[in-house]
């Protein structure tokens, strides 16, 4: 990569990181609709837009710099209390984020489309004109706070505003002084911040050049407490913190305080009075004497401390006071930028490196090669052991064997490490989808609660990236056609707001992602009618099909048309494409639906596509690899045990009937007639299939490489892999074979 290319890549990488954090924080803000916004959160969002602006300007990305600047400007007015946060402001910010994402995507392709340019320009105008100006007051509350000029001089405008807000609301302010050793002050300060943050707002952190010891450093934290002095003192026990109440003079005009201010005390050196004093404080092991000042009234806890929980409680109790058409509820609390601990924010930047996924692919290929060498070595060791004719010393043989085992262990660790490096939380996609859901729901006039869960489940980055489109398709269908209108829902006794949930869960080597709704469900009789009319199934087939099989017809190509939408609760719009996309990721999709109750789609996906353990099988003299994560068991079957039911071959396995597929037949190889077949029982989600092969050749770790050219579209094959003996074999696509098996059954029926 040349220097310009490297600079662009560096910009895109950091820009994307910023936009992702912006997205997370906006999502939290969206959840808090109707509640008072958390100032730290707003400031975090402002900082992200601010950083993006600076970064884009520095790298000559003018379109991004401009939009980031316009967003930052709005956010600045918001964080400085010059503007109130309303639905319109929030919606426009979310739209701007979408636009920033698109701009970054275009920048990475070194494109600049006119259409996006126009959208950005309209957005810019809206951002500039938005919002109602908050009422300004004549007096400056900050003037009532006793603070030395020297301290006041280092506050940024934002910090001044936050102080002002705290004074205006009558929040008790403190100077929290803590001295630490130079060697570990960052850890100490992080711990102190972690204790303070749940109790109020750390407005500013001032390093002091007047430390308590010879090799120490002291900090003054300006802190607005939401709890009583007593509680604060108690919670700070065990830290080197000393509390000094900052004196606030009463306001000239009456204000509406949220909580009583700290009692007035005479000013001290930095405009504060010690609440308690330790006789001779030892750093890091102070005692906590009882507070000398009378205890304050407990302050009202801020409403923003547990927004997610509150929102969820409101939903579960049927309380739907929000006027917003869409609410996004996250079942586990994401970590917004603003509330991240200091340690994390400072360290994550220095301890993380970004690696191009192609480099990881290249490394993975090298591991693949090493795995082959390992397998060859193992084979040689085995040959030496078996071949009595070779006059190798026993000791040498043992040594070789030991070293090979050692190599195997190290390779396992290397492989595991590389796989972990490719994993990213699936929540990255979820956050993006949440924003799209808002837009679509608004377009179609539905009231939706969008519930996200399991966002921290990790998947291979490539899979996560490919998931966005299929998931959007399914969710779009759920909003468009699954969820009924608020009136229709009320008419059948359901809550006005429809519930759509997106949930990920790890199950062994797979991740199951469920998209469900509590809408009208799929009318399987309607599905049957339509499939018959379109000639996708015959009358005889239709009569034999179970309800589940009928529902699965919605995945057939050609099933869905615009006219089918209204007839069948609208399911099935282009779901064949979704199914193919999931199939390309070696996954499988399954549908459940109950009329009037709702619909759920289950996507079962492998955790990674990079290195897999495979079962090597032989059929008619050819070799194939079967991914082991879909192999449930292996049976040895006599030809007489294979039955034919309704012209399909089946096996009886412990009381259940298992459809059988002969691999030789699938790929058109001449069939052999062995005395016994080996049957590989493969399964994904609820589907099961027996695959008959001639021989089992063992297990191996393989790196699956995609196929090019004509082989690319061959159904039932997901790629190729090199085996230890330097042979290249085809890897079976179990998901596609399961599909094939099921549809073959239908065709034959």
């Amino acid at each position: 990569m040349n220097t310009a290319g490297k600079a662009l890549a560096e910009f895109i990488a950091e820009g994307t990181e910023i936009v992702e954090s912006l997205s997370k924080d906006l999502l939290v803000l969206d959840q808090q609709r109707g509640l008072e916004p958390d100032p730290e959160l707003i400031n975090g969002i402002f900082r992200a837009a601010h950083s993006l602006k600076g970064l884009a300007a520095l790298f000559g990305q003018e379109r991004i710099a401009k939009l980031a600047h316009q967003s930052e400007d709005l956010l600045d007015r918001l964080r400085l209390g010059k503007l109130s946060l309303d639905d319109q402001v929030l919606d426009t910010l979310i739209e701007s984020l979408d636009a920033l994402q698109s701009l970054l995507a275009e920048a990475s392709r070194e494109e600049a489309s006119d259409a996006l340019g126009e959208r950005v320009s309209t957005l810019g105008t809206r951002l500039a004109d938005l919002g109602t100006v908050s009422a300004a007051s004549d007096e400056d509350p900050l003037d009532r706070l006793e603070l030395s000029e020297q301290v006041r001089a280092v506050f940024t405008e934002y910090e001044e505003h936050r102080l002002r807000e705290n004074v205006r609301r009558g929040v008790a302010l403190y100077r929290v002084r803590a001295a630490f050793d130079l060697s570990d002050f960052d850890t100490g300060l992080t711990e102190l911040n972690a204790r303070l943050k749940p109790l109020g707002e750390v407005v500013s952190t001032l390093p002091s050049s007047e430390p308590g010891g010879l090799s120490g450093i002291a900090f003054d934290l300006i802190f607005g407490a939401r709890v009583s002095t007593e509680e604060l003192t108690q919670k700070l026990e065990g830290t080197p913190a000393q509390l000094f109440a900052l004196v606030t003079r009463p306001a000239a005009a009456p204000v509406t305080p949220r909580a009583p201010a700290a009692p007035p005390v005479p000013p001290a050196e930095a405009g504060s009075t010690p609440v308690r004093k330790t006789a001779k404080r030892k750093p890091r092991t102070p005692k906590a004497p009882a507070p000398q000042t009378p205890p304050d009234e407990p302050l009202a806890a801020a409403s923003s401390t547990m927004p997610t929980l509150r929102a969820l409680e409101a939903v579960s109790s049927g309380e739907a006071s929000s006027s917003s058409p869409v609410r996004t509820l996250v079942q586990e609390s994401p970590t917004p930028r603003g509330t991240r601990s200091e340690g994390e924010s400072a360290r994550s930047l220095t301890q993380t490196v970004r690696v191009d996924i192609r480099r990881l692919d290249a490394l993975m290929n090298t591991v693949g090669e090493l795995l082959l060498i390992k397998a060859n070595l193992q084979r040689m060791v085995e040959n030496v052991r078996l071949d009595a004719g070779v006059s190798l010393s026993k000791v040498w043989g043992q040594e070789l064997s030991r070293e090979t085992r050692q190599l195997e262990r190290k390779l396992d660790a290397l492989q595991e490490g590389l796989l972990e490096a490719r994993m990213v939380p699936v929540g990255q996609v979820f956050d993006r989808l949440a924003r799209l859901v808002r837009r679509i729901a608004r377009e179609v006039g539905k009231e939706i609660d969008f519930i996200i869960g399991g966002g921290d489940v990790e998947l291979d980055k490539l899979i996560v990236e490919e998931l966005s489109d299929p998931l959007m398709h399914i969710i779009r269908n759920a909003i468009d056609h699954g969820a009924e209108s608020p009136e229709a829902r009320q008419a059948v006794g359901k809550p006005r707001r429809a519930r759509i949930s997106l949930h990920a869960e790890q199950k062994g080597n797979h991740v199951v992602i469920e998209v469900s709704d509590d809408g009208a469900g799929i009318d399987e009789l309607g599905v049957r009618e339509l499939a018959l009319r379109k000639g996708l199934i015959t009358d005889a087939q239709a009569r034999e099909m179970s309800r589940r099989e009928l529902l699965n017809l919605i995945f057939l190509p050609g099933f869905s048309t615009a006219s089918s939408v209204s007839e069948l609760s609208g399911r099935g719009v282009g779901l064949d494409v979704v199914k193919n996309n999931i199939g390309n990721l070696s996954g499988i999709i399954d549908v459940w639906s109950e009329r009037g109750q709702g619909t759920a789609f289950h996507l079962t996906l492998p955790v990674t596509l990079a290195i897999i353990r495979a079962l090597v099988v032989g059929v008619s003299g050819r070799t194939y690899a079967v991914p082991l994560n879909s192999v449930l068991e292996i049976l040895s079957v006599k030809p007489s045990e294979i039955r034919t039911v309704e012209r399909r071959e089946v096996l009886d396995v412990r009381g259940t009937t298992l459809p059988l597929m002969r691999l030789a037949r699938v790929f058109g190889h001449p069939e052999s007639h062995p005395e016994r077949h080996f049957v590989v029982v493969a399964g994904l989600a609820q589907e099961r299939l027996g695959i008959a092969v001639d021989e089992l050749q063992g297990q191996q770790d393989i790196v699956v490489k995609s196929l090019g050219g004509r082989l690319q579209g061959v159904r039932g094959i997901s790629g190729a892999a090199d085996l230890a003996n330097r042979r290249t074999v085809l890897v079976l696509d179990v998901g596609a074979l399961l599909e094939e098996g099921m549809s073959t059954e239908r065709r034959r029926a």
Partner: protein
Amino acid sequence: MTFKILIVEDSRASRELIAATVESIPGLEAVTSSSGLEALKLLPRHVFSLIITDINMPDINGLELIRFIKNNPALRDTPLFIVTTEGRETDRDRGLALGAVEYLVKPFSPRSLEGLVRRYLQLA
């Protein structure tokens, strides 16, 4: 003789760019820090000839860092530049009042930064 320059900037890409500009001058070595706190750790470990800091940073803001440096007898004579996206007059004035000698608003040209660094270190 090698001059060490401390760069305090939370944006990685910006930090790299400033460091690259500084290191393009022979005899200069850039020491970088991604936060004010990290900078406080670095200050006693090196002798810096110049400090370049951003204002808007998550833990300790640039103004607070400057105040700390200027109150510290061992550090107070080190020239300080502010390089920031913040174009606000009040912040500029405060930075300069606290003792910063230059205030560069992003996007700055690497050449202008280079010129200033050379001037303050009295390099040809």
